[in-house]
C-alpha cells in the first residue's frame, strides 16, 4: 500500500490542484487521495461489469460461432462449418437481404420524415414545448408495447386502417397487412419509421437551432430561393449532427429484434426474419447456440462499418468547431 500523500508524479502532472495534507490523515485517507489509486478504484465497478458481461461474452460469442454448442451440451470446435452451412442456407441469405432492405428503407424514411418534422418545429409555434414533448412519446414507450398496438392495427379482420380506407371508398377489400411477405415487410418498416421519427426530429431540431438566422438573411439578400437556402445553408450546417444521429439509427435498426419478434415473429413462413431474429430462432427455441452465434457474429462487419463512419463523423465535427486544423 502506498503511504505517501504526494501523488505519483506522472498522474500528479495531470492534476492542476494539489491537496494540502493534514498531519493526522490516516493511511487510508492518504491512499484514497492518490489520484492513480483513486482512478483505479473508481473505474473498478464499471470496468468489472463491462469486462465480465460485455467484453467477455463478445469474445465468447465469436468462439461459439466456431463450435457446435447446443442448449444443455457443450460443443466442440468445428472450424468454419457453421459459416459454410449458413452460406448454403437460403433462409440466412433472405435474413441478410431483409436486414439490409429494412435498414436502408427505414433509415431513409426516418430521416426524410424526421427532418421534415424538425423543420416544421423550427417555426414560431404556439405551445412549442408541449408539442415537442408529445412528439417524443412514441420513442419513450417500450417498443414491444407499441409494436403490439401495431399488430392490432394490422389485424387482417379488424384493421382500423382497412376500415378507414373502405369507409373513404379508397379500397373495397380489407388489406392482409401481415399475410404476404412483401406486405409484412412494408408493415414492419412502417412501424419502425413511426418509432424512429421522434428521435431523429428532436436531435435535428437541436441542430437547426444552432444555425444563425443571419446566414438565412444573407442568403435571402443574395436572392436564394427557399430550396437553395435549405440546400446550401441548412443541410451543410446540419451535416455533423445528421451523421452522428444516422450512425446510431443505422446501428440500432440493423440489429433490431423487438419489433419483428412482436409483430410477425419472422413470419409468414420465416420471410420477414432479420439477422437478429433468425439468430434468436436458431439459438434459443431451436437450441443451436453455435449456429445462432455465427449468425450474430455475421452482423459484426456491418457494425464495424457503422462505427468507423461514426468515428470519422465525430472527428469531422471537432474540425468544424475549430479544434484542430488537419
Amino acid at each position: 500500500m502506498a503511504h505517501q500523500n504526494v501523488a505519483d508524479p506522472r498522474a500528479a502532472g495531470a492534476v492542476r490542484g494539489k491537496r494540502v495534507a493534514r498531519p493526522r490523515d490516516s493511511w487510508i485517507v492518504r491512499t484514497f487521495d492518490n489520484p492513480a489509486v483513486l482512478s483505479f478504484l473508481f473505474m473498478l465497478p464499471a470496468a468489472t461489469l463491462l469486462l465480465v458481461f460485455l467484453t467477455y461474452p463478445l469474445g465468447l460469442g465469436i468462439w461459439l460461432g466456431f463450435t457446435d454448442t447446443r442448449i444443455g451440451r457443450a460443443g466442440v470446435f468445428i472450424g468454419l462449418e457453421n459459416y459454410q452451412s449458413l452460406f448454403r442456407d437460403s433462409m440466412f441469405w433472405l435474413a441478410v437481404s431483409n436486414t439490409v432492405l429494412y435498414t436502408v428503407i427505414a433509415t431513409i424514411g426516418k430521416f426524410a420524415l424526421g427532418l421534415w418534422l424538425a423543420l416544421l418545429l423550427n417555426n414560431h409555434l404556439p405551445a412549442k414545448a408541449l408539442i415537442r414533448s408529445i412528439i417524443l412519446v412514441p420513442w419513450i414507450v417500450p417498443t414491444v408495447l407499441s409494436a403490439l398496438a401495431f399488430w392490432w392495427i394490422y389485424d387482417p379482420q379488424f384493421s382500423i386502417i382497412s376500415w378507414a380506407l373502405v369507409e373513404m371508398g379508397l379500397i373495397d377489400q380489407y388489406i392482409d397487412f401481415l399475410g404476404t411477405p412483401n406486405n409484412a415487410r412494408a408493415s414492419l418498416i412502417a412501424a419502425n419509421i413511426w418509432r424512429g421519427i421522434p428521435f431523429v426530429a428532436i436531435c435535428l431540431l437541436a441542430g437547426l437551432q444552432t444555425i444563425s438566422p443571419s446566414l438565412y438573411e444573407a442568403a435571402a439578400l443574395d436572392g436564394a430561393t427557399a430550396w437553395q437556402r435549405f440546400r446550401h445553408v441548412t443541410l451543410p450546417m446540419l451535416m455533423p449532427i445528421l451523421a452522428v444521429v444516422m450512425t446510431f439509427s443505422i446501428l440500432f435498426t440493423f440489429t433490431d429484434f423487438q419489433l419483428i419478434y412482436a409483430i410477425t415473429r419472422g413470419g409468414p413462413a420465416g420471410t420477414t426474419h432479420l439477422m437478429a431474429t433468425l439468430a434468436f430462432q436458431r439459438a434459443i427455441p431451436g437450441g443451436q447456440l453455435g449456429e445462432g452465434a455465427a449468425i450474430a457474429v455475421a452482423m459484426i462487419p456491418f457494425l464495424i462499418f457503422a462505427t468507423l463512419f461514426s468515428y470519422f463523423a465525430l472527428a469531422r465535427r471537432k474540425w468544424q468547431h475549430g479544434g484542430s486544423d488537419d
Partner: protein
Amino acid sequence: MAEERAGMDYLNTWPRKLVTVYAPLSAFLIILLFPFYWMTVTTFKSNEELYNFKDYNPLWIHSPTLDNVKRLLFETDYPQWLMITMTVAVVATFISLFASVLAAYAIQRLRFRGGQTVGLMIYLAYLVPPSILFIPLATMVFQFGLYDSPLALILTYPTFLIPFCTWLLMGYFKSIPYELEECALVDGASRIQILWKITLPLAVPGLISAGIFAFTLSWNEFIYALAFISSVEKKTVPVAVLTQLVEGDVYHWGSLMAGALLGSLPVAVIYSFFVEHYVSSLTGAVKE
C-alpha cells in the same frame, strides 16, 4: 424561448403557414399518437363492440367497460410482472448510476493516464448491441446458475446502461467549474469529500437525467428478458404481455391492449415529470 430561432419565418403569411406548417404538423401529431389512442380505445371497449364495425363506429367507445383491465389485473400475473419489472429496472439503474458516477468522475476529473482511451472504449461499448451478446450471455447465465432469475437481468442490464450514463455524466461533470474543486483541494478536502459534498450536489440534474434514461431503457429491454427468464411469474411486462397474454390463435385484444397501456404508464408518468431534462439531455448527448 430566447434561444429558438425561426429563420425566415417572418416572411410567411398566415394562410401560407396553415398549408406549409400547421397542416403537415397536425398530420404528424395524429399519426404519431394514433397507436396510443387506439390502444386506449380498445382497452375500454366490450368484446361485442370491439369486433363489430358495422353497428359501432370503431373510433369511439360507445359503452366503456373496465372488464379488460379487471381481467388483466385479477386473472393474470400482471401485478407480479409489474413488480418484477420495477424491481429489475430500479436496481439496475442504481448499480449503473453508482458505477457511472465513479467512472465519469475518474475520466473527467482525475485525468489518469489512458483516461481518454478508457472514455473511447466506453463509447464503443455503447455501440455493441444486445442482439449480438444475448447468445453467449445466455450460456454464461446458465453456467452461473442465474438462469430464470431476475438477478441475470440486474447484472446484464448495466452493460448497456453504464456506457450511456457514463457518457452523459462525463458531459455533465465537464460543465461544473473545476475551480470549485481546486479550492476545496487547497483547503484540505479529500477527493472523496469533494465528490460527495461538492460535485455530486451540483450534478443532481445530470444524475436525474441519467437515472430516468437508465430506468426507461431497463423497462424497455426485451431480448435478455426473453432469453434468460422462463417462469411465467418472473417475466418482465414487455415479455409477459407478448408471451402470456397471446393464447394460441385467440387474441384477447382488449386485455392485450390494456396490458400494453398499463405497461407504458410508468415510463410515461416519469417522462412527463422530467420532460425538459429528457429533451435537453437527449439533444445534449448527441451534440456533445
